[in-house]
């Protein structure tokens, strides 16, 4: 293949179509903010918690949809309120009763999810439900782009501010409680960031797939880097690569391949490749038995 042909294949779609550029910008913004949160979720063994949280957002978005139709501000605000309410309620129940966080979160997200499906089915057709669940990355308008960019900026700034207490809270929450009172607020702020990113991702990818761009790059990064200073940038890179790949594949394959799932599938493929050849505990490196060291 010629260089020009390659350029047509990889760059052409973005040069030619504004909606592709918008989709790319939105996904890259999301790639900067969601994967670092995924890294912390993974390391805290809370990976599935973000999945639960994404379901919790649904009724809020549905309520916004019921009130104002397919309106970005209404659905975003609704999603934020529902997600934060579930996170806070679950946190409150965890602190005040015998339930652990995963159980209390499961209880609230199931209530929330059922409520959301109920609300959506009160009005609107199957197509509307599909839109909420799977997003419309190729129809990002200015407002949606501003939202995604704002969320990425807020997330990175907040992570920088919270980084040290967040790491201590992950390693030794009891220690953080014994030296101060920031543990609870830091944990709540972290959950709020997760909710905000899921709401942002839901514009582009839908509630179900937003989790994919948060978790898959983080999990794949585990096979390439050992500590946080490596995991976070690697997860961002993998997420960006998945975004570009998913957009291009769905473009060249024709409209039939929906873009949101294509991006998450690309992230999934990168995860599988990382699991096979990643130098940090990847399968192939386990199979090759290297000579042990002297000491």
């Amino acid at each position: 293949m010629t260089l020009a042909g390659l350029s047509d294949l990889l760059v052409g779609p973005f040069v030619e179509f504004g909606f592709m550029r918008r989709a790319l910008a939105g996904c890259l913004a999301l790639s900067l903010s969601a994967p670092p949160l995924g890294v912390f979720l993974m390391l805290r063994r809370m990976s599935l918690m973000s999945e639960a949280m994404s379901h919790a957002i649904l009724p809020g978005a549905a309520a916004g949809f019921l009130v104002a139709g397919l309106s970005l501000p209404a659905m975003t605000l609704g999603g934020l309120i529902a997600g934060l309410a579930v996170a806070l309620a679950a946190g409150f129940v965890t602190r005040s009763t015998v339930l652990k966080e995963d159980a209390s979160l499961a209880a609230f997200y199931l209530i929330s999810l059922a409520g959301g499906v109920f609300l959506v089915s009160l009005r609107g057709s199957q197509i509307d439900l599909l839109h909420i669940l799977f997003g419309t990355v190729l129809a990002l308008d200015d407002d949606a782009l501003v939202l995604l960019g704002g969320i990425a900026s807020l997330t990175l700034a907040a992570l920088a501010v919270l980084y040290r207490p967040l790491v201590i809270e992950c390693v030794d929450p009891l220690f953080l409680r014994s030296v101060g009172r920031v543990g609870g607020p830091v944990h709540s702020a972290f959950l709020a960031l997760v909710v905000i990113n899921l709401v942002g991702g839901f514009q582009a990818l839908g509630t179900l797939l937003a989790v994919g761009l948060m978790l898959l790059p983080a999990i794949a990064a585990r096979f390439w880097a050992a500590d946080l200073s490596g995991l976070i940038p690697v997860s961002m890179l993998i997420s960006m690569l998945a975004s570009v790949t998913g957009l291009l594949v769905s473009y060249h394959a024709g409209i039939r391949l929906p873009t949101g799932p294509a991006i998450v599938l690309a992230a999934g493929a990168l995860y599988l490749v990382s699991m096979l050849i990643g130098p940090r505990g990847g399968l192939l490196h386990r199979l090759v038995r290297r000579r042990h060291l002297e000491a």
Partner: protein
Amino acid sequence: MSAIRFRGLTLGYDRHPAVHHLDGTVASGDLLALVGPNGAGKSTLLKGIVGEVGALDGAVETGTKAIAYLPQAAEIDRSFPVSVLDLAAMGLWRPFGAWASLKRHRPRLLDALAAVGLSGFEDRPIGTLSGGQFQRALFARLILQDARLILLDEPFTGIDERTTADLLALIRGWHGEGRTVVAALHDLHQVRAHFPSTLVLARRPIAWGSTAEVLTPPVLARALALSEAWDEAAAICRHGTRAGTGDEAASAAAHDHHGHRHDDGHDHAHAHSPSHGHAGHGAAP
């Protein structure tokens, strides 16, 4: 001056007491061993002091909020990818908080690691340390916390002799600097050799005083006779309705002088009553 004061402190879970009606004070600068069988409430008492477990009744007062507390190591996520230096540096949380740079204080961190015998380990992930090395790293964090009151929960369980000796030397050093140290321990030889005072706990306080006088066969036998099981049908404790806060020990001792014999389970009060004459213990004001 007292570092910790207990006023009829009762700690427990789900209304069942794990520490029952503890009165007395830990003098500032004391090196106190907390001894008792499993389930005696040693860990619960330390958690109560640090505020991790709330009081069911009574109160505990500490002169300072800056308490260095070493829980049992199992409560730490050792698979999280942070370095030994990062773990030790957590000890600087109080003065440095979330944002202040630690870059210029690296020598201080390395000194603390050297003091626990972990020179050269600073960049190792904590998951690669052995049990003893990990405990040393936690002691480096305690050093950096620089607290006047230090609580240690079974710091030498599963730790070999050499490491234990090194860490005991650190504890004696803290004692020499006038810090107050309270440690839950199981090894009575260790307690006799290094800890001037001892509190024997078996849910209720059995004896409290100088180690030589407290660690006697009858006291230990009574501690071992502790029934570990909760009684689901236990009646509501009426202790508080009969005696006020802290006066119970004194009144029990006074009764003793009159020749009364208590066999209603209040004999524990004698052990740490002022009549034994240990400065800093009992219900002294």
